[in-house]
């Protein structure tokens, strides 16, 4: 009987598995790089928006002498903190969800500035809200500015946050 030496079924399956794994890894790497590029693109802007949120509250505090506790949706034209709404914007890092996103939408407006967006649909890239908590003694308002960056194509939210305490300069 004529004998032929060839690859076994197990050998073939092993080879196919290794090749498929390599291919999937390369494709995943590409997806990851594209996603990183997207977030990197908005990283600086998000950090500036966080700092701006703090600066806006600082300006209101310097002007009015007081700020009320709460969560607010503000922009550079804001001169006093708006009335609180019941559907406040909030982010849940555990579930990676942004609740009531349309309450904190921010977008580039026609004048080229990042400002409040009146869109009803919360599919904006940037979302910002500030939270104010005042300690009882001494009464120092603590301001936390939060910016959430959302990739419209999906993926995890990116949250940027900074906190300051407002002191009165005599």
């Amino acid at each position, binding site marked *: 009987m004529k004998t032929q*030496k060839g690859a076994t079924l197990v050998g073939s399956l092993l080879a196919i598995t290794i090749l498929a794994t390599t291919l999937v890894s390369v494709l995943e790497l590409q997806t990851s790089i594209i996603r990183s590029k997207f977030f*990197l693109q908005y990283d600086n802007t998000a950090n500036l928006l966080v700092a*701006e949120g703090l600066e806006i509250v600082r300006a209101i505090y310097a002007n009015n002498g007081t700020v009320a506790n709460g969560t607010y949706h503000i922009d550079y*034209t804001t001169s006093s903190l708006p009335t609180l709404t019941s559907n406040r914007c909030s982010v849940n890092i555990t579930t990676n969800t942004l609740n009531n996103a349309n309450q904190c939408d921010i977008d580039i407006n026609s004048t*080229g500035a990042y400002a409040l967006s009146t869109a009803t649909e919360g599919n904006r890239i940037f979302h910002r809200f500030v939270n104010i908590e005042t300690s009882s003694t001494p009464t120092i308002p603590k301001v936390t500015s939060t910016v959430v960056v959302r990739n419209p194509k999906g993926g995890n939210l990116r949250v940027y946050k900074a906190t300051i305490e407002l002191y009165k300069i005599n």
Partner: protein
Amino acid sequence: MKKGFSLVELMVVVGILSIIMLVISQPVAGIIKYQRESQTADNMRDNLQFVINKMEKELKTSSGVTAISGGAGLTFKDQNGGKVAYCFSDNEIIRLETDNCTNILPSSPRLTENTIFRVVNLRFWENNRTNLTTMSISAQSLDNKDTVTMQMSVLPLND
């Protein structure tokens, strides 16, 4: 008993390997392309961030901040009382030590260079009720592939 591989077997192997290489090479080429594009955009963002930080630092200790009509420029007095103007001209941001943007010379100091990227929009706003000064800069890469907008608001301490 056969020894070695036949021509057909070799051709099949080469064919399969070619297909695999072809499939893998496309994502790899994509990665290289994105990396190159990212470098240009990163460079532009770093430069813009530097300019914004520089302007923010100076505005923090300034007084008499006034946006020029239309918002394409800003005048103020620095911490020593010297007149300063930020002006937008020829896709560049220029810093003049005067109180207007009417006399821009080729030798005037530039905060940005249009040979690295083009500033396509510069706007300043003042919030008259809170004294908050807001600046927004949009820049475009020289190949027009990337556009970056950055905004910062500052409360001048001396206003």
